[in-house]
């Protein structure tokens, strides 16, 4: 490093919880007194509320002015790093969510709809949903999409339940009780298969970074209900033998589901149906430019399938007769509801707006940029001391992300991937993503450059990691005690999900504090 990188510093407000703020009698809004004739008619306004519904005592709310409330929440927001610096969190496909798309989704034509309105009054909204359906059909080759699922795992579950319905209709469900997946497929495939009652068969990776055909052949049998797989996987490795995989699974009588969670690097380059898949899933809240919004939504897992499976789709399905759009509830073979109504409309509107403004060429270019940016980063990152790539001998380029390992750095310096994550935030960069469980690659990290950042931003990310590596080799304590520039210091491992030291509500906090359960607070440094 010739020149030290400039560090960031988070504001430290030491803000109390809102329940501890305020002064008796202070108000955000002062209401004028009721006019005399009103007072005359209702001398006791409380009496308008039936006695059984009336509170016995006033709620214990903080008494504050409006600006005090605004200051409080602005300060809290400033103490988080979220989306104020670079965030290239692997498998999350972070994208810019254009303001104009947000503005459209907040128009009253969207926000004031009710999903149970008569379809004659929903024509515009249904046109957007149907339009998104046709775009996804074009990208996948599937015959019908539904948007009911409230996320990717929800869509994977839709697939597992449709698999169940398909085999039940053929009288083979008792026999076909196994779903095959791979160790680097998103864990929601295994989880939803298990939730739908299937036994999960997991394939491990070969030297190439993906499971061998022999492993698949050893797993497939007359008990196979389906294959659930992503490609590229969560390490950015693309399995080029997928056509043969699907053929083998079909030959055994199973269905094949393509989890397109990692679609960015493959978008417009392949169609799931042409590879042979019976169904697939897209995440509108990441790949299609609607906000990723953290885990918890609002999100949409768009699930699409072949004509043969379409009869099992959750109802209603949005259809078009050439003149009008309809909500088709009359589907006797439907699996029923996966979620209420017909999808998170604001998310679909944003994804539709993104797709229409990008166009086919723009989508193809975004895909190219995401792969190019990742491979550009890979050159820079692998030049850093202590950084290696998973499956170093697999020479095929990774697509939109790469799984790296800091095992070498750890063995050399004692600095592990969590230390590096913490130190990164000192430069105003979101902590990088490590890996799903289990960690096949020790001390893993997985950046996904995406298409939104410029070359300078990628260069800075690489430079930050390079500097942290230098620090690890020269002054490991600096990295191991980081972050130094954050609103709070390092949390103790495992602390955030330990119920004895956490309270999710003020009432729970008081109760736990009175019981003496809350010992260490979040401000305590790691020991």
């Amino acid at each position, binding site marked *: 490093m010739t020149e030290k990188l400039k560090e960031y510093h988070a504001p430290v407000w030491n803000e109390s919880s809102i329940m501890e703020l305020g002064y008796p009698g202070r108000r955000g809004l002062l209401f004028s007194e009721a006019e005399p004739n009103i007072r005359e008619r209702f001398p006791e306004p409380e009496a308008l509320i039936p006695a059984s519904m009336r509170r016995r005592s006033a709620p214990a709310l903080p008494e504050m002015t409006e600006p005090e409330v605004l200051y409080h929440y602005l300060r809290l927001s400033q103490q988080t790093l979220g989306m104020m610096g670079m965030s290239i969190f692997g498998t999350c496909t972070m994208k810019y969510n254009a303001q104009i798309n947000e503005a459209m989704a907040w128009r009253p034509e969207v926000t004031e709809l009710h999903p149970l309105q008569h379809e004659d009054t929903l024509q515009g909204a249904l046109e957007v949903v149907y339009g998104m359906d046709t775009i996804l059909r074009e990208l996948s080759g599937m015959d019908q999409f539904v948007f009911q699922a409230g996320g990717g795992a929800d869509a994977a579950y839709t697939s597992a339940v449709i698999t169940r319905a398909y085999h039940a209709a053929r009288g083979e469900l008792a026999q076909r009780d196994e779903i095959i997946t791979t*160790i680097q497929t998103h864990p929601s495939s295994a989880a939803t298969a298990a939730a739908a009652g299937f036994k999960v068969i997991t394939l*491990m990776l070969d030297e190439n970074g993906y499971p061998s055909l022999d492993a698949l052949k050893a797993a497939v049998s007359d008990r196979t209900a389906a294959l659930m797989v992503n490609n590229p996987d969560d390490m950015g490795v693309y399995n080029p033998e997928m056509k043969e995989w699907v053929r083998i699974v079909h030959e055994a009588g199973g269905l094949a589901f393509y989890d397109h969670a990692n679609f960015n690097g493959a978008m417009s380059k392949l169609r799931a149906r042409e590879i042979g898949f019976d169904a697939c899933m897209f995440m509108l809240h990441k790949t299609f430019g609607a906000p990723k919004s953290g885990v918890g939504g609002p999100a949409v897992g768009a699930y699409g399938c072949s004509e043969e499976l379409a009869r099992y789709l959750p109802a209603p399905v949005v259809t078009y007769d050439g003149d009008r759009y309809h909500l088709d509830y009359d589907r006797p073979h439907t699996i029923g509801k996966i979620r209420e109504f017909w999808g998170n409309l604001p998310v679909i509107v944003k994804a539709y707006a993104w797709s229409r403004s990008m166009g086919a060429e723009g989508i193809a270019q975004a895909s190219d940029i995401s792969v190019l940016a990742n491979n550009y980063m890979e050159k820079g990152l692998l030049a850093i001391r202590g950084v290696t790539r998973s499956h170093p001998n697999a020479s095929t380029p990774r697509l939109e992300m790469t799984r790296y390992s800091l095992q070498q750095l750890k063995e050399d310096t*004692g600095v592990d991937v969590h230390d590096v994550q913490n130190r990164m935030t000192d430069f105003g960069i979101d902590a990088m993503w490590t890996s799903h469980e289990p960690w096949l690659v020790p001390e893993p990290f997985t950046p996904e450059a995406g298409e939104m950042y410029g070359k300078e931003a990628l260069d800075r990310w690489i430079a930050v990691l390079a500097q942290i590596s230098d620090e690890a080799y020269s002054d490991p304590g600096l990295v191991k005690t980081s972050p130094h520039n954050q609103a709070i210091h390092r949390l103790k*491992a495992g602390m955030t999900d330990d119920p004895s030291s956490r309270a999710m509500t003020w009432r729970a906090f008081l109760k736990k504090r009175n019981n003496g359960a809350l010992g260490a607070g979040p401000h305590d440094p790691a020991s």
Partner: protein
Amino acid sequence: MGETAARAVGFTPLVVHRPEEVDTVSADTQVSVAAMSKAGVDLILFVGGDGTARDVLASKAQHIPMLGIPAGVKMHSAVFGTSPQNAGQLAALHLARDSAAAVREAEVMDLDEDAIREDRVSARLYGYALSPYERRLSQNAKAGAGPGEEATLDAIARKVAARMRSGVLYVLGPGTTTRRVSTSLGLPSTLLGVDAVLDGRLVGRDLDEQGLLRLMADRESYLVVGVLGGQGSLFGRGNQQISAEVIRRTGRDHIIVVAALEKLISLDGEPLRVDTGDAEVDTMLTGHIRVRTGLEQDTVYRVQA
């Protein structure tokens, strides 16, 4: 032993044993470990190979975890760090009681001298020792991640036991994984030996090849085995009693392999090993096999001779 080296790097060692000769022997290791055990150490950290691990095991300090700093040749025992640095960091995590380090019973194995006389390199299972290992988990998940290796293996063992069919012989290989099956049946087991169960009863303990073949005669049988040692041995190292002939008569599709996913992952992509001394049986076993890694969860793993 080690006093000079310890002083050279700035430690003030408490010397518990002074060997009589410059060239130390097994007995010196055993006496030292026994003295350390008495002194109440938290970890026996040793440099060496499988032979040293055996000496540490033989000193009967079973309540104290041991960890080997690998020195040179490939180890069969599962009590070693993957590199000297790794062993050092693991020791530090263990001594700091970091939640990333857990302790499990690990195989102590060493070269099988009988096999060497037959010109084969194989290993024998000598026992189990508590040994720390690093859990590969993301930090936030440490507190509440999954049911954990112990509970998962117990659940699989209960399932194996519950699904045993009457009139069928179940041969339980050595090790702590298969011991869980005996435990869930309420039966005693031989940790280092091979036992057999028929209709819920223990019909053979610590069986040799001939004993197994006698019990198997004219009977459908299953082999229940774990994965042994740091090199991931399935057959032939540590469970030689389950001979090539026993495996041949049982048949490949009647082999039930149980292992924690963490154990498979710790093999770093290396296959499970078979070394039965019979090329034909080794070939039959080569390929991919299902390993029970969870309740209603199998992992397909590569097997190689």
